[in-house]
């Protein structure tokens, strides 16, 4: 494969976790594109023209990668649920001290963690859709590969919180302070950081559809977001 094509594909695939299914798609695409480029060259196009024509006609491949990504995540959460010893759906953990607790593979859909101390808690591959975390302390908490759609994080303490690989579509972090929070490979479709303060936040993910209007951030966070094509028109850099 040409170095140019290899680089081109790396850019497209970089915001996504290297799941086996996604790696396979990349391999398939790289082979097909290379052959297409070779054919175009045989037809008389030069290297650059051939590359341009081949890559322009791919269509919306990102949509497909995201679909594979979401499906795999859902599957992980389903498998997780099957092995869970307890179904904790709609449980009430409000105001409790759960620090350093582990909640791997339980279904916690719609649970209430308001005002709870979740310091150093580990939540992995779980369904936390519609859960309430308002006023909870999430310092050093790991909430990875979880479904957090429509979860509520109002007035939370977010310090060194890890949201890696979690789906946060439509979640609001408006006017909150996020300190050293990690969003690597997280789903941020319509996730709002409006008027939020972002300090050393890691956004190694597709950030194009997240909202950053009125946010304040440090240079490092800004540079990373810019690289992942976030809309940063109305932000303030510290």
């Amino acid at each position: 494969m040409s170095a140019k094509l290899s680089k081109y594909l790396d850019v497209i695939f970089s915001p996504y976790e290297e799941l086996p299914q996604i790696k396979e798609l990349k391999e398939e695409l790289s082979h097909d594109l290379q052959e297409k480029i070779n054919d175009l060259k045989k037809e008389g196009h030069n290297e650059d023209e051939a590359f341009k024509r081949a890559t322009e006609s791919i269509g919306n491949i990102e949509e497909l990668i995201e679909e594979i990504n979401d499906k795999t995540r859902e599957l992980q959460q389903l498998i997780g649920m099957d092995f869970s010893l307890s179904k904790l759906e709609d449980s009430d953990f409000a105001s409790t001290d759960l620090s350093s607790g582990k909640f791997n593979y339980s279904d916690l859909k719609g649970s209430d963690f308001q005002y709870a101390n979740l310091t150093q808690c580990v939540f992995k591959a779980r369904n936390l859709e519609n859960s309430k975390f308002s006023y909870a302390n999430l310092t050093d908490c790991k909430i990875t590969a979880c479904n957090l759609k429509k979860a509520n994080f109002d007035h939370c303490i977010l310090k060194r919180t890890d949201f890696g690989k979690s789906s946060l579509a439509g979640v609001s972090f408006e006017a909150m302070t996020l300190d050293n929070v990690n969003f690597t490979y997280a789903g941020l479709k319509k996730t709002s950081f409006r008027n939020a303060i972002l300090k050393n936040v890691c956004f190694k993910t597709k950030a194009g559809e997240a909202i950053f209007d009125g946010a304040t951030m440090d240079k490092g966070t800004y540079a990373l977001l810019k690289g992942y094509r976030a809309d940063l028109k109305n932000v303030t850099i510290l």
Partner: protein
Amino acid sequence: MSDKKISADLLRGHTDTIILKLLMEGDKYGYELAKQVTVKSGGEYELKEATLYASQRRLEREKAISSYWGDESQGGRRKYYYINTKGVEQFHINKQNWEYAKHILDELI
């Protein structure tokens, strides 16, 4: 221009059936399928990779087709697709549905 777009949308709705038909003639990899579509349509219709791969995945999930990796050493591995009995059945149903719709549309338009 807009006419072409409408036609492309109409054709895209039949991507699954087109792929099933091509695989009934033998195992093929992605680019081979795309190339056949271009050739057979006289260059009038080009299947985009995103559309093609989405369709391949959908058909695999429905167990209409399956895939395997080739063992080419030069220029990367190819992912080949082949049709299952369920896929052949699905093709015939889709084709019947299309003929039926075509018959009605011919009367109406």
